[in-house]
């Protein structure tokens, strides 16, 4: 079974530029998550989708971050304009979509803002 796919793996941009990350969840997984992990910390939830609807985006900095999940499958996370403090690993994860179910993570997209 294919895992959660993410791209690009690595990205270096200058502050105030924009960047987009793509995620393809495990087939059949209704719930998709985007987490931000700053070096030395635990993952922090940015946004959670159930199919193509947003369940929780309370910690998404909406003035610069946006995410969409068209057709309830793939998802894109965009940052515009980027700040230095956005340097982190952006982890996409997916699950079948009910409580107590395993959440599987992708390998992450490493962002460095200079």
């Amino acid at each position, binding site marked *: 079974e294919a895992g959660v796919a993410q791209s690009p793996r690595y990205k270096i941009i200058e502050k105030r530029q924009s960047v987009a990350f793509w995620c393809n969840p495990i087939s059949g997984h209704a*719930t998709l*998550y985007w987490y931000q992990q700053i070096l030395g*910390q*635990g993952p922090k*939830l940015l946004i959670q989708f159930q199919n193509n609807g947003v369940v929780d985006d309370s910690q998404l900095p909406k003035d610069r971050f946006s995410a969409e999940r068209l057709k309830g499958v793939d998802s894109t996370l965009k940052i515009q304009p980027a700040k230095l403090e956005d340097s982190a690993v952006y*982890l996409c994860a997916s699950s079948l979509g009910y409580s*107590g*179910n395993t959440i599987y*993570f992708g390998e992450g997209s490493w962002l460095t803002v200079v």
Partner: protein
Amino acid sequence: QQPVQSPQAVILREGEDAVINCSSSKALYSVHWYRQKHGEAPVFLMILLKGGEQKGHEKISASFNEKKQQSSLYLTASQLSYSGTYFCGTEIGGGSEKLVFGKGTKLTVNP
């Protein structure tokens, strides 16, 4: 709402045991344990649902004390491959599917 993990770091010699704790101030529906190696994605270890059940996976097991809202991860006869950072993720209330992660416990196993 973020669970508290302890200790922050552990250094072991191969073959020694370790316990990592995760506690929450909120009533928990489930606790998820992950291990992450440097530069890699978190890898799922196990889930514990409310009810105090204990689970095991080879030499790694965990318990969930519903009354204390606390989970413990037990690593016995540690191997070099156990090195990494362990995170607990807690789910509050059935139906949310939202995991909030602790800050992690860095485990180093030396020969």
